[in-house]
């Protein structure tokens, strides 16, 4: 595996399954006999969060702590970033403090790549969401969740049918999931109003539909996305009510899913907009499984990146 995890493109299908298998083994031991493992004792993991986050930051923190790493949480609010410190100076400060891994979330697409390529730090960089670009650990935990619900896809996702519904345009979760799911062999359909489908989607190995009702019956996994109002400078749909009518998952749509189908959502959910409360709390919903699996998958990623030999990284001035 590479030194960094910046994009799903950094992983081969074998490496992705290796991470999922590691997470499965970790599930057996850390949910059972051994709560805390000594594996990363003496290593420092920095959570560098320039954007707000609940799940991802807590999940990374908990994963690192269960492997006995030291965790430093850094959020832009309340730090010198609010005084105008640059990413470079922040990164060099972390380097001087001896970080072994930096988990970065940033509003700008490519921020993680910049940090990894800059030569400012020698630590492994893990992308925890960069703008509208990618969120690879979310895709990995989604794949893990899917696999735990559909054991027949243990070795390959060939024949698995996934629909990703909603704000594809602004969603790094969708991008990473499309890359990973298609890499593992699943067939993916994107469903959204035309305004929320990104330009260039023709180059992705996916089908596109503008009609949610027509795809519902033919999917195993329905992945709902959050409508990211904070990234919407223009209006992409006439009203929330109209969006909800066309692309929201209400109880009628939930009932028309096949018997074994599951509903996923990366969170945070806009209840009543893209997903109704009944759907979010139904037995088909695996939203909370996604959260608990997130810790295991991130433990696996940290183990794969930090558990082995220390790579000697060149640090340029």
């Amino acid at each position, binding site marked *: 595996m590479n030194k960094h995890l910046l994009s799903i493109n950094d992983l081969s299908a074998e490496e992705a399954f290796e991470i999922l298998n*590691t997470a499965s*083994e970790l599930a057996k031991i850390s949910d059972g006999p051994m*709560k805390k*493992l000594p594996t990363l004792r003496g290593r420092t993991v920095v959570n560098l969060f320039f954007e707000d986050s609940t799940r991802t930051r807590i999940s990374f923190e908990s994963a690192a702590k269960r*492997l006995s790493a030291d965790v430093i949480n850094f959020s832009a609010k309340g730090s010198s970033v609010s005084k105008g410190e640059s990413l470079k100076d922040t990164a060099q400060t972390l380097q001087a403090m001896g970080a072994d891994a930096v988990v970065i979330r940033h509003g700008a697409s490519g921020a993680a790549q910049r940090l990894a390529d800059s030569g400012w730090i020698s630590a492994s960089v893990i992308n925890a969401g960069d703008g509208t670009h990618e969120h690879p650990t979310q895709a990995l935990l989604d794949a893990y969740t899917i696999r735990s619900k559909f054991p027949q896809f243990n070795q390959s996702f060939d024949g698995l049918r996934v629909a990703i519904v909603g704000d594809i345009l602004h969603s790094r979760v969708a991008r990473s999931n499309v890359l990973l799911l298609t890499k593992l062999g699943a067939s993916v359909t994107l469903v959204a109003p035309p305004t929320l489908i990104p330009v260039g989607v023709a180059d992705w190995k996916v089908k596109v539909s503008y009609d949610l009702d027509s795809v519902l019956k033919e999917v195993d996994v329905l992945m709902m996305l959050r409508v990211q109002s904070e990234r919407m400078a223009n209006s992409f749909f006439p009203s929330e009510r109209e969006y909800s009518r066309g692309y929201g998952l209400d109880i009628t749509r939930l009932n028309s899913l096949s018997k074994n189908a599951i509903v996923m959502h990366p969170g945070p959910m806009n209840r009543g907009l893209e997903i109704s409360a009944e759907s979010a709390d139904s037995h088909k919903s695996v939203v909370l499984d996604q959260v608990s699996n997130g810790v295991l998958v991130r433990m696996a990623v940290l183990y794969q990146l930090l558990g*082995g*030999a220390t790579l000697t990284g060149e640090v340029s001035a």
Partner: protein
Amino acid sequence: MAIVLDAGEIGRALKRIAHEIIEHNHGLDNVVLLGIPTRGAFLGERIAQFLKEIQSPVPVGTLDITLHRDDLRMRPPRPLLPTLIPSGGIEGKDIVLVDDVFFSGRTIRAALDAIGEIGRPATVQLAVLVDRGHRQLPIRADYVGKNIPTSSSESVKVSLDEIDGKDCVEIVAGA
């Protein structure tokens, strides 16, 4: 390459170890076997089979020690192997760790750490198919299939039917 144990000898060694476990523990009431993957896990199963034939069944599990190794930083990350603790747990039990080759003692140190995370057994004993010497830690085995003096440039290769398609122990000359 020299064969030091053939299939028959491996079988007899494991059967003798099974007898010794019963003798040493005055029965099997409190005994739990934990094999260290990969090959130690299969050896644990085989010893358990002998114990069942001789006296009574015992709980058998596996214990992967990868995450407790002290040389993690010196090698690339390795895949995790299954850990399966029998449902009765290990608290207050007499644990017999089973491994294929006993060498530096570092694997066993890691296993002791792993056991310490899980619970507090009454005793921890060690059964190995081959003891090749060159200990780096003050650790010894309670049950040994065969002592094989080796030079540190040689390596000992254990093949088991379950995974390698044959049963034998060989000494392979170093590079």
